[in-house]
């Protein structure tokens, strides 16, 4: 017991040290940019894990929710809504979108859920491309006003967005860590692994799944909101097939059903993808990512997180959608 609390304290201390020192250690603008993008993707990937990994809901609208967060923030801020309020409204919109998608999703199962959420994501993308007067069409949104809190302008400080995205990631991970161990999280696992039994024991599967979608949406949309504020823009490529595949690869390579795995993989893959050698490859980057996804599915179904943990603790293996 004492050992455990020592362990906890040292983990907490390490996390605080990394969070505080990392932005100061990464001084190049180029790498700072990659770091921020990686951290924001980490939020999307780890919260996607809640539906895809834990609840076993084949949800393919997570990246679209991220995009909604970004676009809604940008559109509202451009129309004079204070950035903070715009971000909050964007999160609400992301949750509402998932709530709407949940209505048909609850009546479907397995691959039909994948098809429907995929379709919903494509629909959002086509609206972003087509509704030019509001979304800027294929150009996207530009010149989104800065995020200003009190007198402090986030876009003028070199480290502010690193701290902001780090903070968002830490909150996301801490919340998900608690959530998946709570009775709610366990009921999601029960619904995924033994649907009929869980239902017969009184788990309200429909409600739990809607909640999982909504909670996942909060973090994805929040990440999108910060993303738009940081870049002062939003581009319709967010809704593209490639972005979705990239974030999906983060979840799988890191390990679905582990919370931390997808976050870790998000940072690693973003850094790799943006190193000068890889970035010059263009479409080939995504071909490599596709091959990586298949290799991980085939030979490392638990993902990297599971791989690093194997043997160290006898933890229960939680693989994709089982």
């Amino acid at each position, binding site marked *: 017991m004492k050992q455990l609390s020592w362990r906890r304290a040292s983990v907490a201390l390490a996390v605080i040290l990394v969070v505080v020192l990392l932005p100061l250690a990464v001084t190049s603008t180029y790498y700072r940019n990659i770091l921020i993008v990686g951290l924001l993707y980490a939020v999307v990937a780890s919260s996607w894990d809640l539906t895809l990994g834990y609840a076993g809901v*084949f949800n393919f609208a997570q990246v679209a929710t991220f995009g909604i967060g970004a676009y809604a923030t940008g559109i509202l801020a451009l129309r004079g809504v204070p950035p903070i309020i715009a971000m909050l409204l964007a999160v609400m919109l992301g949750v509402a979108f998932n709530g709407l998608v949940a*209505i*048909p999703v609850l*009546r*479907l199962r*397995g*691959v*039909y859920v*994948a*098809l*429907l959420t*995929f*379709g*919903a994501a*494509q*629909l959002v993308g*086509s*609206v972003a491309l*087509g*509704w030019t007067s509001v979304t800027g069409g294929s150009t996207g949104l530009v010149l989104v006003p800065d995020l200003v809190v009190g007198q402090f302008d986030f876009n003028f400080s070199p480290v502010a967005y690193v701290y902001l995205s780090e903070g968002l990631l830490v909150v996301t991970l801490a919340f998900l860590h608690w959530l998946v161990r709570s009775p709610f999280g366990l009921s999601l696992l029960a619904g995924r692994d033994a649907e009929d039994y869980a239902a017969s024991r009184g788990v309200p599967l429909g409600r739990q799944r809607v909640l999982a979608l909504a909670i996942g949406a909060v973090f994805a949309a929040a990440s999108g909101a910060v993303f738009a504020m940081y870049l002062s823009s939003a581009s319709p490529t967010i809704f593209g*097939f*490639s972005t979705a*595949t990239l974030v*999906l*690869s983060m979840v*799988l390579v890191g390990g679905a059903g582990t919370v931390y795995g997808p976050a870790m993989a998000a940072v690693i893959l973003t850094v790799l993808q943006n190193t000068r050698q890889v970035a010059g490859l*263009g*479409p*080939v*980057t*995504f*071909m490599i*990512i*596709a*091959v990586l*996804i*298949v290799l991980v*599915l*085939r030979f490392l*179904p638990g993902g990297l997180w599971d791989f690093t943990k194997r043997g160290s603790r006898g933890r229960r293996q939680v*693989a*994709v*959608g*089982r």
Partner: protein
Amino acid sequence: MQILLSILIAALVSGSLYALVAAGLSLVWGTLGVFNFAQGALLMIGAYVAYYFGGKALGRSGLLFGLPTGLIMLGLLGVVLYFLLVRPFVGSPTGELSVIIATLAASTFLENGAQQFFGATFRKLPPVLTGHLSISGNSVDWQQVIIIVVAPVILLGLAAFLKYTKTGFAVRAVAQNEQSALLLGIPVSRIYMFVFFVASLLAALAGILFGGQFFVTPSMGGDLMLQAFIVVVFGGLGSLTGTVMAAYIVGLITAASNYYIGLFWTPAVLFAFLFIAVIVRPSGLVASNK
């Protein structure tokens, strides 16, 4: 009258293309119980193969060579995908999601590969037949007529094949009960391969017909694929009849919405339609047994 006729023709053209793509998805689902997200990418590769193996250099006569080459090469590519991405996962507890993700990855691979090696430029395949005829004042391309005629003929042929031939019996037996089929000595694994071959061939045919009427681009599979998703959710996977019926209904809605509501709103209209259809009839038009 003229307007209705042109909407009807547009509906039949898109319905036929959707039917070809969705029938492949439905056949694979009915037999293997997995969903192939790479169907749209296969369609696109089929069009490019036909383009490079004939259409490009030789014009319309080149299509005589390009079309069969495209179909056969894509059938074989389907078999390769089956061995690489489907076979390892079928039957495992996480198989359903693994195959979705693996074929999604294949789709990304093929689409970006096409972008890299063929470029993003719009290409055009020669139509199977050029020229047009006029029906009560409406001008209809012969290519459109070909699409409208070929798709139902091929799909009826497929249905007849499944119903009356020995291999067709075997496919249906595997679809109904894989274990008993195995006990009866049906080579289940070869049937799976065969089904993937046929489904990819159908996709390639849709791609080549589409490319002769519209354009060939690396992302051409995406839109057709999305329509095919709506078709299979609406029609119910695994039932060929339901899928084909749904394809023409979705084609009609697309054409009518394009005309009356506008091109931009069509995806939203289709999705709203699907949304309601799923709530009213979650198991699809024709409920399947899987």
